[in-house]
């Protein structure tokens, strides 16, 4: 009896753990941009107190956020609403935890092991994730995209 009771208690703790974890995991993508959906654009807009301007091509829409501090963020969404690319430009380093969302850890880990021979911009490609960092102090720019999620006919050079 005792072991069985232990087992069911463990089961309850496990279920509790799972639900806390899934709540936490849901919290992260809620403001994740890359790989997220269009609802995340509104969350980003609120976080950086930005104005929002939307432009449309036949293959995707571009949601441009412009903050009063000079940060410009563009989020590229496929017709499905899936965000396949983000770009940034402004005086401060980008909050990539926010912009890369669920891909942030992957990027962070790749950065720890990347070659540091180039002192300047950085190009990081890991699987389908491409992250490019450029600029210098008081002028940061870059972009990130999921190479397997570019809409048909869209070239990476278009993402600016």
């Amino acid at each position: 009896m005792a072991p069985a009771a232990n087992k069911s208690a463990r089961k309850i703790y496990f279920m509790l753990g799972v639900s806390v974890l899934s709540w936490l995991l849901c919290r992260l993508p809620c403001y994740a941009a890359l790989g997220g959906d269009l609802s995340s654009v509104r969350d980003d807009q609120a976080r950086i107190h930005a104005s929002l301007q939307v432009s449309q091509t036949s293959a995707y829409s571009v949601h441009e956020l412009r903050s009063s501090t000079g940060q410009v963020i563009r989020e590229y969404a496929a017709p499905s609403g899936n965000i396949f690319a983000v770009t940034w430009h402004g005086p401060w380093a980008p909050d990539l935890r926010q912009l890369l969302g669920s891909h942030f850890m992957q990027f962070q880990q790749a950065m720890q092991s990347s070659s540091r021979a180039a002192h300047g911009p950085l190009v990081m490609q890991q699987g389908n994730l491409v992250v490019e960092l450029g600029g210098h102090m008081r002028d940061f720019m870059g972009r990130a995209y999921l190479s397997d999620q570019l809409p048909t006919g869209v070239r990476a050079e278009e993402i600016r």
Partner: protein
Amino acid sequence: MTALRLWVWPVLLAAAAIMASCGGGSSHNNSMAPIVTSGSNVQPIVVNSGPANNYANGLFTTVTICVPSTSTCQDIGGVLVDTGSYGLRLLSSAGGGMLTLSLPSQTTGSSQVGECAAFVTGYTWGPVHSADIKISGEMASNVPVQVIDPTFAAVPPDCKSGGVPEDDSLQALGANGILGVGPYAQDCGGACTETGTTNPGLYYGCSGTTCQVIAESLTEQVQNPVALFPTDNNGLIIELPAVSEPAPSLNGSMVFGIGTQSNNSVGSVSVFPLNSNGEFSTTFKGQTYPSFVDSGSNALFFLDAATTGLTVCSDNSGFYCPAAAANFSATTFSSASKTNISFTVANADSLFSNRADYVFNTLAGPNAGTFDWGLPFFFGRDVYTAIESRTTPVGSGPFWAY
């Protein structure tokens, strides 16, 4: 150490001058003016492998720092000269750097002020201290500087949100510090003086190991020391000889002031004022791209493989590795000027194969949608950096001219 260094420099520079005058390999593009080597506003600079012996195209110098208003000083060699940042940052001995001098801390209330300074591929973290900074015969008094210190309070989570590593060791930094002498006076500017959500969060008040974002006045921010010199404070000129092939090292001069002395008069230069992003424009194959000049970037970083036709190195995605050296031409322009720049890109793997060489005029790498005119751009060119709102004979800063 100090005596040796003071003795070595004039000899090296004299040797370089003799070589140049004998036609021994070094030349200087614009009007072939010789590199200025004498004057109280002239500081020797050198391109070499740096104090960690791991830096390609690293431009270094020695600065003297002192406890403010005292003669308690320390010379710090192997400090990177960076026109892409603003203010002096020194690696503490705890991080493997040279700095051992105890400098007074900047405080706010009972808290010590710390800074998270973002660079493109890393960040520096540590307390803000005050120092007198002596470079050549110039001195900036009581300047806020950052001490890069891995033992300082816990790195705040927001400082890590760029996802890039902390540069807190000699190996990571490749230098004993960074001397930021770019076209701005502070490393942040007005935004850091604000309270609330518009503050970008560079400065922190730290009690124990816990730090919180603070508003930091312009004068308390880490400062470009050139802007605080009593004279020759409107900018500087970096003068390096032309380079025709890879070399172990290269000597040159950093001349303070623009048009303030007989040795820094403005010759025939093109002026490129910065826009609100701190950039000017470069055209390449009919397209216009944002661009900037940065002695702290160790190659010409421009565009991408598809646009340039250059192969990226298979073992290092930071550089280009074309099968054969390729020649390019681009045009830098502003409302005031237009200048054609010709340059050559060689295979980075081949360049690096000779382990004795650290000076590479043909080293280049990708930088999607942008031109970063890094250190090779400075070889054979006098490059002027004018500080924001300071006047010069060719207009007010911020601008680059060459």
